[in-house]
């Protein structure tokens, strides 16, 4: 991680919206209102891709992945004065735009600026039932009357983005990421233009899936070159406090959902035919309704399908949902015994305790387990759990504390179990003899 970029990170006119704008408007070459907007973008240094209609349903929207933002005219079909769109046609037109926004989101989560000649509330009413793409005041869609924007397009966009932490985070991360990606590829290309082939051969020689490995390598190299984001969200903190005060339950639920997004990747985002370290499976007992979780601990290199060979089995650690946890008030960490790993807010707001069993369940990634997979635990939560399990499975056996030295005092419940308070006299004697031994919280070997 390098030092934060200097203030030049945000250019004067374009602000967060440096790059290519895609303008979708049937009147983009004729109507004055949109021409003023296009000119303002171009004068500001941006480039505009002009489309007179939405891309076809079958169009590959990956072609839009480089766009910084989109401008969409809500009134894409001009029927002329005195002509009204019949209800079926009007509904189909709205659906067409909603489907486009939905598809676009899968490829390019960039701000979309919707202009309308109508009352913006009409557009909001049409979008509100589709909470996956639009939520008042918090989505990446801004709706304005076309005439209200004009040459102030960048100012309006930036004022809006400044109110939305998710847009700010996206735009500042994109700038840092683009810079890092460029740096990686320029650097490696300058060393040797065949660099990807060299790496490809190495991965093949190791019988790995070269495409996967190359992707991981580039991701690591990009991450190592990322600057700190040029972003400051302190201004939003008061709003967060206000939300907590207004509705604590909703606030906690939102926070849990965000925490899950930070540490857990749901199955919809995973390759259905391959498993990996960290994959989590969930079985529900139909009688007790109790859920059992399994976490795959097997090393990543053993989870890979190599040429001509099956990837082998998974090594699963069993877990259960827990409703109460102990948290260290000073550091905010979940307190765990040596023989367990607890993942806080792992899935659907539930905490899961994985017990470090002596024997792991060896299981093929069969149809049942494909169906039961709920997602994948991500680093550093996975890394921590693996390291703790490794430490547990290789723990050295040490002698127990002689019973004659155990005090009769009251045991105090602490972080790692029962902590015994030794009599002062015994400690002093031990120090004198330079023979103080470790006290295993769980009593030695187990």
């Amino acid at each position, binding site marked *: 991680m390098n030092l934060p970029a200097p203030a030049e990170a945000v250019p004067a006119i374009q602000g967060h919206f440096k790059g290519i704008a895609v303008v979708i408007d049937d009147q983009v070459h004729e109507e004055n209102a949109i021409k003023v907007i296009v000119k303002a973008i171009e004068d500001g240094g941006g480039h505009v891709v002009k489309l007179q209609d939405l891309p076809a349903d079958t169009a590959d929207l990956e072609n839009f992945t480089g766009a910084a933002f989109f401008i969409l005219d809500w009134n894409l079909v001009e*029927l002329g004065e*005195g002509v009204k769109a019949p209800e*079926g*046609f009007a509904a189909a037109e709205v659906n067409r735009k909603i489907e486009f926004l939905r598809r676009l989101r899968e490829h390019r989560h960039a701000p979309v600026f919707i202009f309308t000649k109508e009352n913006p509330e009409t557009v909001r009413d049409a979008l509100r039932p589709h909470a996956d793409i639009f939520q008042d005041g918090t989505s990446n869609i801004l709706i304005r009357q076309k005439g209200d924007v004009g040459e102030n397009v960048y100012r309006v966009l930036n004022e809006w983005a400044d109110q939305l932490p998710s847009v700010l985070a996206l735009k500042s991360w994109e700038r840092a990421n683009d810079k890092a990606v460029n740096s990686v590829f320029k650097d490696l290309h300058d060393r040797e233009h065949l660099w990807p082939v060299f790496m490809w051969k190495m991965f093949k020689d190791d019988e790995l899936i070269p495409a996967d490995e190359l992707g991981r390598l580039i991701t690591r190299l990009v991450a190592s070159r990322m600057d700190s984001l040029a972003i400051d969200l302190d201004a939003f903190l008061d709003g967060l406090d206000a939300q907590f005060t207004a509705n604590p339950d909703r606030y906690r639920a939102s926070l849990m959902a965000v925490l899950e997004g930070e540490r857990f990747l749901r199955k919809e985002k995973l390759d259905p035919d391959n498993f990996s370290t960290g994959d989590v499976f969930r079985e529900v007992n139909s009688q007790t309704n109790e859920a059992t979780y399994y976490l795959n601990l097997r090393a990543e290199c053993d989870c890979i399908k190599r040429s001509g060979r099956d990837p082998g089995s998974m090594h699963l650690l069993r877990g259960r949902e827990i409703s109460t946890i102990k948290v260290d008030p000073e550091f905010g960490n979940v307190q765990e015994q040596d023989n367990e790993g607890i993942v806080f807010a792992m899935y659907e707001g539930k905490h899961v305790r994985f017990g470090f069993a002596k024997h792991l369940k060896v299981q093929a990634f069969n149809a049942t387990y494909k169906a039961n997979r709920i997602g994948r635990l991500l680093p550093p939560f996975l890394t921590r759990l693996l390291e703790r399990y490794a430490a547990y499975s290789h723990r050295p056996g040490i002698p127990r504390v002689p019973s004659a030295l155990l005090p009769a005092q009251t045991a105090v419940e602490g972080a790692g179990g029962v902590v015994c308070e030794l009599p002062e006299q015994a400690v002093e004697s031990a120090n004198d003899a330079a023979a103080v031994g470790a006290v295993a919280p769980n009593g030695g070997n187990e």
Partner: protein
Amino acid sequence: MRDLQQLFKSTKQRRKDIRVVEVLEKVARLFKGMTDRARIAVSIQPLGDAPLVAKTTDAVLLQLFLNLFDNAVYWLETQPTNKVRKIDIVLDAEHQQLVFADNGPGISDDDLPYIFEPFYSGKGQDGRGLGLYIARQLLDRHDYRIDVAPKRDRVLPGANFLISFVEEAQ
């Protein structure tokens, strides 16, 4: 009510000779996404060499065909998907008329007397019952006419509308 107000709003467009097929093709293009998705085959067939020309405004023809297409697509979508869905439009310049037909469920005898009445719709809650009413009112203003096509002019087994561009005697 806004639809009705809009209907009687004066437009600045002046009547002129318009090739009907041009407006029809424009509306067919506007509906292409809907007709493609619903797997409806649209056929526009001019009879003879001479074009069908109407003395009216673009807005009137546009509104007329928008409403007819909208109706046809709605009713065809209620049909089983395994059935071939069709909209056929036959333009007859010699008789100054046009037949707009689909092979949907057609118009029931119960509905027949009322389909050009305002707020009468066979679509239940899906319809406001203004499409055909507006179409007839607009044509009336130009002394043209829309009716359910008589048997001899029917093109397809569903709903068939005959639009006559012969100016009726005042």
